[in-house]
């Protein structure tokens, strides 16, 4: 059990995904990294900046891929300055992921991403596309923010896109698009990642029309190992009991407030 240890790591490769978004390939210098379960995350430490939670967007044996969008001071620094050879540290893989993806065998699964929520769904899509009929509903503000689409095209049966400004696909929010598309696809499960509001609206909608599934929760993660309590939603310590919650667990958590 070395998940909570800060592992020294080096950046091996950077891919520019969009104007303010990059993918970083990270290699751990000492510890072997166990294969992350879909939805698990790392706490990435950028010296002189902060330690922040990061979704895992890919796993390649000795390397992890994370996909970073410039939002706060730490992510802005990374997007502008990260380059191969830079040393960082990380804890992880952390938290509860989707335990047994084999259960999705032969099922129809719809992935729903709002914004940078697409990142963890990429790792998930690689894990399930060969056993489940995988669909993607993906929304951003504008076409220029859409990322990783080439990869998803090889992994999904169908992709539905929304942009707030209508520059590509459906004009409107990903929630609006999902409420149109889900009744047509009639999936066995949905898996949702993105901002809290989107998680909440999709979870309530899916529950109402009787579709099961999971959300990849968002909160403030300070320690990432279930010790500080800053990420608590209801009675769930999201970094440890989650970030993957079933839709039913998530609805219970938001009903409990905070």
């Amino acid at each position: 059990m070395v998940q909570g240890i800060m592992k020294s790591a080096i950046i091996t490769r950077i891919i520019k995904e969009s104007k303010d978004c990059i993918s970083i390939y990270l290699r751990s210098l000492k510890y072997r990294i166990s294969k992350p379960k879909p939805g698990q995350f790392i706490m990435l430490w950028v010296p002189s900046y902060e330690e922040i939670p990061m979704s895992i967007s890919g796993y390649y044996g000795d390397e992890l891929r994370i996909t970073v969008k410039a939002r706060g001071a730490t992510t802005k620094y990374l997007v502008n300055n990260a380059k191969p050879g830079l040393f960082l540290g990380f804890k992880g893989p952390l938290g509860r992921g989707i335990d047994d993806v084999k259960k999705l065998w032969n099922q129809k699964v719809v992935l729903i991403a709002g914004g940078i929520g697409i990142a963890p769904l990429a790792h998930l899509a690689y894990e399930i596309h060969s056993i489940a009929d995988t669909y993607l509903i993906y929304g951003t503000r504008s076409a220029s923010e859409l990322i990783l689409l080439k990869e998803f095209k090889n992994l999904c049966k169908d992709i539905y896109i929304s942009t707030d400004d209508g520059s590509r696909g459906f004009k409107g929010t990903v929630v609006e698009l999902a409420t149109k598309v889900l009744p047509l696809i009639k999936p066995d499960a949905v898996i949702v990642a993105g901002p809290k509001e989107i998680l909440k609206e999709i979870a309530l909608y899916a529950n109402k029309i009787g579709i099961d599934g999971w959300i990849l929760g968002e909160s403030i993660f300070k320690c990432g190992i279930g010790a500080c309590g800053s990420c608590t939603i209801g009675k769930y310590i999201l970094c440890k009991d989650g970030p993957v919650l079933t839709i039913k667990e998530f609805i219970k958590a938001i009903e409990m407030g905070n």
Partner: protein
Amino acid sequence: MVNPILKTCIAGIELKHPVMIGSGVLNDQPQLLERAIVEGEPSAIVTKTITWEAREGYSPPIIIELPQGGYLNAVGLANPGKDSIPSLIEVGYKYNTPVIVSIAGSSIKEFTDLAILAEEHKCIAIELNLSCPHVKGLGAELGRDPKMVYTVIKEVSSVIKIPVLAKLGPWDNIVQVSNKALEGGAKALVLINTIRGMIIDIYTMRPILSNVIGGLSGAPLHPIAVRIVYEVYRELEPEIIGVGGVIDYESAIEFLLAGAKAVQVVSALIKNGFKVIREIVNGIEDYLNIMNLKSINDIIGVIHKF
């Protein structure tokens, strides 16, 4: 086989068994206290240290698991402030489990105001955090000065009727500080707090914690804590709660043998969850059976008889 008696008593507070949840991890929110009680069944819970004003704490990294075992943390006494006290105490009454409020102040007035507030809300006892190792003005400097320890405890004890427990750090003059704490009116000593430590990443050549220095907790602390409980008990025979690296029933029993009447678990909750409390209690019960002992009292301080 008769079930051995696990009941113990600290500062006049009856405990159904000797395993409490100590201050530090996940105990400043009512819903988490509730969960800790339901899943762990501790005999009592000490809250996270509460200060008068809410504190945001330091920026991450704040807690690191160590390759050698245990943890290093510099959370910076993050807590929701005095307004959280009533709801935390309430959870204890709802589940019939004593909730002890841990407090720290930057002045004697802050200590006494917090203690009065907790007593007004029917708190059963106060734990004074006199030893937080990584926050300036709120602990460490104060805790190693026997006179200051005496003064703070004396002042707090004089304004409330409920018992005062003093949590002390692992200082070299711990016997002297303990003596002064008892003279000041502490009904029991909580030994020990974390030890100041540091961890450096060799590739970035930086200290990992944002605060640079943090408090070492968990298994590596245990032999030091056992030694301190042993020495303080040998010299003063006070009521002691042992804390530091209790991760299983064996490490708990060592504290009891050295003279502690109860123990607190903190770091082990991170890895093993609240259920570790029940496992430790069951382990102690099995141990007493194997040793053919009728009561927990048969092992407290026994090491000093040899």
